């Protein structure tokens, strides 16, 4: 009984006999293995790169991890595959009930923002699995980042279950539980360490490169026809570098780049790239002008987009950034493109 129930295709009702009403589904959906196997690990890596992410869902319901009894604990989570994998592997050797909500395969934080990891779904799921019959405990532990979607007091009013917010990270759960459901302040705070920034930066870069594919093809054809094939790498390099500056270097160096606005940080990184490029390639003055106008702006735009990958930007802040920098970024990019076009036409 390794991971039956973790795939939508293999629902498992192995742990319970049907209740008195034959039509009712058994409350326990299945068992979950605390060991994340190689297939799941690979899936985890691929989903980080945007591959197979939206289809990686666990069937919502109540799952047993180990041999939990009537005293729980009951941990609530989202039905995105990676989320469930992180949770089940964070409690080695422990027994717990996992209540998996239907967040449409989306992780806790995003789902909480959308409302799918929310009061209504939680109440619905508690009733659907008849949780009050499976356990005697009346406490649920929710991930900290689910709080934006859930009103604890309303859940209690509707179900009699009390909601306690656990740590941000599943790996802090053993300590949290051992301390009697008390969180050290660091457990409640979301941070953004370099490794995470880099990983998200890679994701952002790949996405940006996908958008660049079509213009790159156009540039390749144009430069190939007009200047010959050897000119093609030099044609693609400026924008390619600007993309890396804005979508990879900026996330990686985030705390050390100047300014609070992501646009400013990205613009700085783009400027450094453009300067290095100019020093290396000694371009025609018109090309140089085009590069200095457009490239840092492209980096700034990509950096601005990175705000969505962080958990420390506020909507009001991003609105302000957009109000301040969106038009200048657009204008600079356009200006640089126009200068380049003029240069290509005249020279």
């Amino acid at each position, binding site marked *: 009984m390794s991971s039956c129930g973790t795939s939508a295709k293999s629902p498992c009702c192995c742990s319970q006999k049907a209740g008195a009403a034959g039509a009712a589904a058994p409350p326990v959906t299945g068992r979950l293995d605390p060991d994340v196997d190689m297939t799941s690990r690979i899936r985890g890596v691929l989903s980080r790169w945007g591959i197979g992410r939206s289809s990686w869902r666990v069937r919502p319901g109540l799952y047993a991890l180990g041999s939990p009894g009537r005293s729980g604990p009951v941990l609530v989570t989202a039905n995105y595959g990676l989320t469930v994998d992180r949770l089940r592997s964070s409690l080695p050797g422990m027994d717990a009930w996992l209540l998996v909500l239907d967040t449409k395969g989306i992780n806790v934080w995003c789902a909480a923002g959308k409302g799918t990891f929310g009061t209504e779904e939680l109440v619905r799921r508690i009733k659907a699995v008849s949780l009050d019959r499976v356990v005697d405990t009346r406490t649920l532990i929710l991930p900290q980042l689910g709080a934006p979607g859930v009103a604890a007091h309303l859940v209690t009013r509707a179900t009699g279950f009390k909601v306690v917010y656990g740590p941000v990270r599943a790996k802090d759960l053993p300590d949290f539980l051992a301390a009697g459901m008390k969180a050290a302040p660091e457990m409640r705070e979301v941070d953004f360490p370099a490794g995470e920034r880099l990983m998200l930066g890679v994701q952002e870069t790949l996405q940006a490169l996908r958008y660049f594919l079509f213009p790159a093809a156009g540039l390749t054809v144009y430069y190939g026809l007009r200047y010959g094939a050897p000119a093609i790498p030099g044609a693609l390099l400026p924008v390619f570098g600007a993309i890396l500056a804005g979508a990879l270097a900026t996330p990686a160096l985030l705390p050390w780049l100047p300014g609070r606005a992501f646009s400013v940080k990205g613009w700085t990184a783009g400027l450094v790239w453009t300067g290095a490029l100019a020093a290396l390639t000694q371009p025609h003055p018109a090309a140089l002008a085009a590069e200095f106008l457009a490239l840092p702006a492209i980096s700034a735009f990509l950096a601005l987009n990175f705000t969505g990958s962080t958990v420390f*930007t506020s909507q009001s802040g991003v609105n302000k950034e957009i109000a301040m920098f969106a038009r200048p970024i657009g204008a600079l990019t356009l200006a640089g493109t126009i200068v380049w076009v003029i240069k290509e036409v005249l020279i």
Partner: protein
Amino acid sequence: MKYLEDVSTLKLDPALCTGCGKCSEACPRRVLEPRSGKIAIRDLDACIECGACARNCPANALTVQAGTGCAYAILNGMLRGTAPTCGCQGD
């Protein structure tokens, strides 16, 4: 890490606050702290307007214009003439 200063729409009404502390339990940025039997704002600029505190206050003492701090979603919404709509995990 800190973002822009003085932009958060978070407001706390001490008259309504009962000091239950659910808000500071729900907050992922340590914006709120207990003070003299009630809750007070410790660091407004750390607020990301996620809305967890306001949603979990049984006394309605907290208000905030909750929303996503995602430029892509906001710009996307602007172009379509809708509310911010996020592409995170493809919806």
